[in-house]
């Protein structure tokens, strides 16, 4: 395996909480081993599943997140094999408190880096609490502020499991720092991630420093905000577009566009250049803007609005993204193979580097590499 972290051996004992991190590590060249029990990683039980492939090889979550890694199966009772594998690891990813873990509580070796991703961290009154993507967002202040006023609050992009992926990405940052530190000092250490703190760190808008400063009890405002007009989501022929107009030059371009497209002469009046006036007259402004947006598709409005210099984006759905002309031109999408050799489209590398950093083999079969690591 090539890549900047080739030669580093990683054992991942987590499920969803660490998977995105070790996927990236594998892409960057590390030798990543997924430790599985005989009935397989919890990731293998996550739908959607590929048709025509038998369990436990059919989960698309596994097929995506386990790319580039190796599968080693060890029975949880088999402490000897477990220790044999762990003894060779540079990094171990874990998601359990010490008292609940099958891994040794004490030091594995002075050079091992142990990365622990825990629901609420290893200390504090909630250290034993359980979590989920939903619960992590509830504990961040963001869930409460997301959604329409007359409906229950909703988690941001719930199906994507963002709280887990953000925790994994944070865990990887800590792991890479610990590897750098080990290169300089020769010593390993522990990296700890509390999923609650990860969601708090990406939610300062509802955080305590902000609240103490302005004492504003943030509430749900639906899909528009009264910081400006137009500001938020507007309906169009095939869904919605997102428009955020704050700056005078963006408004001038917006008003001109509405005027040209709908024959509206009032909207270009000087008085509306003032954002405060537009917020005051928000229903009127919204009606006028909707007369424009309902005439076009997401892609048409996006490309024409951007041509005019307006911050407008489509509210994309998966089908629109896969067919997006920019991503196609940039050759972003790539392919992997499922266990029955079916070729399937996946997102490409998360960043582009002038060095050859990224390569990804298909996800392994359950126990495919056990023989390589256990004598």
């Amino acid at each position, binding site marked *: 395996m090539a890549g900047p972290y080739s030669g580093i051996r990683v054992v991942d004992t987590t499920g969803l909480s660490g998977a995105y991190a070790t996927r990236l590590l594998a892409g960057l060249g590390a030798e990543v081993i997924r430790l599985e029990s005989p009935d397989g990683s919890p990731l293998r039980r996550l739908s959607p599943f590929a048709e025509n492939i038998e369990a436990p090889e059919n989960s698309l979550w596994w097929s995506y997140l386990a790319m580039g890694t190796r599968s080693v199966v060890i029975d949880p009772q088999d402490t000897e094999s477990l220790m044999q594998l762990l003894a060779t690891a540079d990094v171990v990813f874990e998601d359990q408190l010490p008292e609940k873990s099958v891994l040794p509580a004490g030091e594995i070796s002075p050079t091992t880096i142990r990365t622990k991703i825990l629901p609420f961290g290893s200390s504090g*009154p909630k250290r034993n609490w359980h979590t989920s993507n939903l*619960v992590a967002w509830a504990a961040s202040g963001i869930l*409460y502020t997301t959604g329409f006023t007359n409906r229950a609050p909703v988690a941001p992009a719930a199906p994507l499991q963002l709280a887990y992926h953000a925790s994994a990405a944070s865990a990887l940052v800590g792991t890479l720092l610990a590897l750098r530190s080990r290169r300089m000092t020769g010593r390993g250490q522990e990296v700890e991630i509390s999923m609650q703190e990860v969601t708090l*760190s990406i939610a300062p*808008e509802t955080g305590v420093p902000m609240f103490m400063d302005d004492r504003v009890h943030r509430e749900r405002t639906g899909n528009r905000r009264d910081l400006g007009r137009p500001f938020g989501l507007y309906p169009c022929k095939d869904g919605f577009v997102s428009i955020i107009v704050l700056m005078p030059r963006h408004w001038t371009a917006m008003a001109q566009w509405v005027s040209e497209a709908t024959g509206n002469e009032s909207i270009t009046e000087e008085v509306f250049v003032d954002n405060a006036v537009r917020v005051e007259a928000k229903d009127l402004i919204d009606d006028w803007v909707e007369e424009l947006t309902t005439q076009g598709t997401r892609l048409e409005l996006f490309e024409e609005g951007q041509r005019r210099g307006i911050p407008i984006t489509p509210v994309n759905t998966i089908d629109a993204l896969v067919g997006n002309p920019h991503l196609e031109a940039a050759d972003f999408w790539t392919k992997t193979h499922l266990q029955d050799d079916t070729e399937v489209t996946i997102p490409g590398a998360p960043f582009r580097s002038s060095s050859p950093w990224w390569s990804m083999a298909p996800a392994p079969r359950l126990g495919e590499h056990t023989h390589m690591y256990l004598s």
Partner: protein
Amino acid sequence: MTDTDDLPLKGVRVFELGIAIASPFCGKLMAHFGADVLKIESRMSPDVVRILGSAWLKDREDLAPISSDTSPYVSEMNASKRSVGLELKTEEGKAAALQLLAECDVFLANFGARALAELGFDYDSVAAVNPNIVYVQLPGFGSDETMPYYPFVAWGPNQAPLVGMDDFTGHADDPPAGIATIAPPDYMSALHAAIATITGLEQRETTGEGVHVDISQFETTLALLGPFVMDYDLTGTVYSRIGNRSIWGAPQGVYPCTGNERWIAISATEAEDWTTLRSLVGQAVDPEFDDASIRNADQDRLDEQIAAWTSSFEVEDLAHRLQAAGIAAHVVSTNEDLLHDTHVTSREWYQVAPSNRLGRDVFSGCAVKLSATPGRWTEAGPSMGQHTREILSDVVGLSDEAIDHLISAGGAFEQIEPGMVATRPWNDWIHLLVPGTEDARDL
């Protein structure tokens, strides 16, 4: 307190052209772990956190000159960085910046790619003065000028819808709710930038060569959509919003409790969770829901019955009961709840550090915790231009006269009104956010 000498990023100097969140959040992480992060600032086109100001300052005309140093986001995104006032659009300021760049290890920027190129700080220009630099940029749509969306503009809240997040947010029968108050793509891009930067530094140790990393925020965030893209390719299925439900089991949701707008989040999607939940809800939920397939098939009715049960509980009490039984649950916290969350404060999540302008300031800590080399906060967010003179002198090696000349020519600026200090109205309560607090409810 760890000595900087032990920190993983000791000796690493970062030149940061950051605005708002994506690049500043990455820079703050690096500063915490020992890097000397230089935030390059402009009065001609300031970072948005310098424009925001502070809520309590609105009626204080006497303090208007220092408004740019008072937004809570200044410390939230820039703690422990040094601020250098350099006007890159002037010939003199640009020349000084390039001299400074020659002494840096990392270039980090989230300016739009076209704006960065027009300023003359694209990769080729920077590598010309510092060939070994680790150059990491986070433009919205990539830095390849031949690509269709290269010149496009998007604010943080425009990016989430672009990558499918708004469509995934909300109840199934409602219009998309959108993610009004956070921009996950900014933070995910920032974390990827940190990963790329550390990787680049490590690789430079072995190869001696720098690297150019292009983090197109559009592409980076799409890497989180893998399984949904695959299912679309295989079956044509277009996943969309499903409220707070799980695609993997039921029940999971946000349910009402006693009081106005008090909600609890509960995840009980595994078979053993249901057995536990059943022992708590008793007869309040129909016996037929003991069948997992019925729980999944009739979630509307299941949620109604659970909501009827939760609505007689006080929310904090119910969260403790559920967690004590082993079920993932939490109060849907408001910002005021977080102020009183003793778990969060017991882990020292909020940090207090000296501030040149405010005496001291409070900000969120770092979610990445290392046992042997924990990071440190030297200072809260800097004042605009606070460190201009010391950096131009110590790092670039300019004489005082040369610095004076640079400033009078408009190429650089120092902190405005250095003697003018302010105190946040709640300064006296800061100590309540650190462990040992008794009660912060007086706020």
